[in-house]
């Protein structure tokens, strides 16, 4: 235990003496903290749309865009002979009429008009746009306008009272939503961010741990080390140091973000609730699963480091592990919209994926306490087993130089060795 502490202290000092690590960590924390306090000193209501909540409400006047958009229309039906109705439905727009569909196309192509419409009938039209942006709602608005024109024309034709028909079509329904369980839309954003965060620290620190092991092989200090202390102290000292460094870094970032947000909550007007208002129970489950999930993968990475002799070979042996981590990452992200589906349930019990799948189920879905306990027990047992195997592989791999050995070959060697 004393030697493990010595290795842990030495490895931690390596992280602390790593200027890139220190500066990056401090910079991220400082930037986040500064951003969290900004609304206290700068009026960000326009940016955040929190005029009311922040107590410095100032109605924003004028057009949102400020720029007038020009549209062109060729209407075969005559329903839009007066463009006033169009200008009213498309705020801040100017409408021109064209004599043919080709003219509409030309004007849009030459960008004399932002968009154009060719109305062939009251139920069919064409929309021309040069480059369509993601927030383009022109067709949605125009659909409604044309449908309204159709209704007017239909009522006139059939001699029906337009008001009554309109009341029938546009019934005002009042609905009040009472969420008794969880609102996925509230937890989706922070779950998404936490999945990415865990994925990143596993990949980033995993490689750092593997590199630390391989470096000791490549600089030939490993023989002195394995004859000075136990290989278990060496491997677990590195794994624990990586774990502490990773969680301190993430913890500081979370603290700066969540803490800064809590302190300045009134100034933010709850605008970042979706990202930073994480319930305590979710944070606890996240912390525990992420911690042991990290140790699980960090042990594998340490074993990987022992199986290669040069740092540039790490990715050759780590490829299969990286692949598993990537697959888990994408599966979990894709299944966030199907939280109670079978795939997510299975993922939340597998030790390779429970570190992110289980807390997402806790945050967004319904999970029984026994499920969390069983999943955590599986993760704990698997981490213990992987740690045991990693220590064996480390012991076997440390003095093997030459070509990289795959994890599968290493396990086969261990089996053969124990069978002898």
């Amino acid at each position: 235990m004393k030697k493990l502490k010595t290795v842990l202290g030495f490895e931690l000092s390596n992280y602390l003496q790593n200027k890139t690590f220190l500066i990056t960590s401090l910079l991220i924390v400082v930037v986040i903290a500064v951003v969290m306090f900004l609304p206290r000193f700068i009026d960000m209501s326009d940016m955040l749309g929190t005029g009311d909540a922040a107590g410095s409400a100032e109605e924003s006047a004028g057009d949102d865009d400020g720029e007038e958009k020009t549209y062109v229309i060729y209407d075969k039906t005559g329903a839009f002979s007066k463009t006033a109705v169009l200008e009213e439905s498309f705020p801040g727009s100017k409408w021109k009429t064209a004599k043919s569909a080709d003219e509409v196309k030309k004007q849009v192509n030459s960008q004399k008009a932002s968009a154009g419409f060719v109305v062939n009938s009251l139920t069919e039209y064409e929309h021309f746009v040069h480059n369509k942006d993601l927030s383009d709602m022109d067709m949605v608005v125009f659909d409604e306008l044309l449908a309204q024109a159709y209704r007017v024309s239909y009522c006139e034709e059939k001699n029906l009272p337009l008001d009554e028909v309109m009341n029938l079509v546009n019934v005002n329904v009042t609905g009040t939503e009472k969420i008794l369980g969880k609102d996925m839309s509230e937890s989706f954003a922070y779950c998404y961010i936490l999945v990415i965060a865990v994925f990143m620290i596993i990949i980033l620190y995993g490689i750092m741990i593997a590199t630390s092991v391989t470096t000791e092989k490549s600089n030939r200090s490993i023989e002195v080390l394995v004859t000075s202390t136990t290989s278990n102290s060496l491997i677990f000292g590195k794994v624990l140091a990586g774990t502490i460094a990773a969680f301190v870094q993430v913890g500081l970032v979370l603290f700066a973000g969540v803490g800064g947000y809590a302190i300045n909550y009134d100034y933010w007007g709850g605008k970042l609730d979706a990202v930073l208002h994480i319930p305590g129970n979710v944070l606890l489950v996240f912390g525990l699963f992420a911690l042991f999930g990290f140790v699980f993968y960090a042990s594998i990475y340490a074993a990987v480091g022992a199986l290669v002799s040069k740092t540039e070979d790490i990715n050759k042996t780590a490829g299969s592990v990286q692949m598993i981590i990537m697959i888990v990452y994408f599966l979990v992200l894709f299944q966030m919209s199907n939280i109670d589906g079978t795939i997510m349930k299975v993922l939340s019990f597998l030790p390779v994926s429970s570190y992110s799948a289980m807390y997402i189920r806790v945050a967004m879905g319904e999970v029984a306490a026994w499920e969390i306990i069983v999943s955590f027990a599986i993760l704990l047992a698997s981490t213990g087993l992987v740690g045991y195997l990693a220590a064996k592989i480390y012991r076997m791999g440390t003095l093997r130089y030459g070509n990289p050995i795959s994890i599968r070959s290493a396990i086969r060697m261990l089996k053969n060795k124990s069978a002898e």
Partner: protein
Amino acid sequence: MKLEMQGIHKRFGEKEILHGVSFSVESGKALGLLGRNGAGKTTTIRILMDVFRADNGTITLDGSPFKASEQKMGYLPEERGLYPKKTVIDQMVYLARLRGISKAEAKKNSLRWLKRLELEQYETKKLETLSKGNQQKVQLASTLVSDPDIVILDEPFSGLDPVNAQILKDVVNELIAEGKIVIFSSHQMSYVEEFCEDIAIINHGEVVLSGRLSEIKKEFGHNQIVLNADNYTPQKLSELLSASFGDAVTVNKVQKDGCIMQCIGSSRRELLKRLADSDIEIERFEAYKPSLNDIFIAKVGEEA
């Protein structure tokens, strides 16, 4: 203390590397572990250090089972290295602490060894900034920083200039004088001859020669005599001996420092008397002791 290896066998896969290696070494003495490249020296040392487990055989210390982790060991491996980006003192303290020394003692011992090896000015320097020879000395200092009872030095002189080699020689002699067990592996036979009372030569995974070096030399001398004269070159002396003393000696070899010959039909005393009565100005007349280099080549070099 007496450290004994008995009948050590080691197999890697299908190939047996060691076939029953045995030797012993006592406190206050140094054992020279010799052998050609790939003979099995490093494997033997690694088994002693518990890096590898022996398939068969025993290692005992004063008759009790030996475990490296339970002893104060200092091991300088042939394939050595430290942390190039760390300061000299940091890594010495770290290695000492790994071997169970307290932080304060580790620091004290580190400074003492840095001073002893004339490295004190490099205490806070990063290892990579030191010359190869000084890095080698830091490595030696790191080996000895935990004040070990058993010291294993694998090729400790490689990379050292004559001045640093002399410092290292003095240190090894001090270790022997302090009653440590020293196991010394080297291809530089002159150093082995200088330090080691006992030797063990390993060839193809087995000990082909072991014992007290002085006795081995005597045995390999085959009762021969070295004769050198002030007034004759070795070659002329050889011719004279063959012509005038052919009934008493056979010259086996002519070296630049004399003739190596065997007495036939007369005792050494009688031969010496006849030589003294002749015109030969005797500069050297003594029992021939071959160098360790000669013994080594004679023992393991035949199939080279």
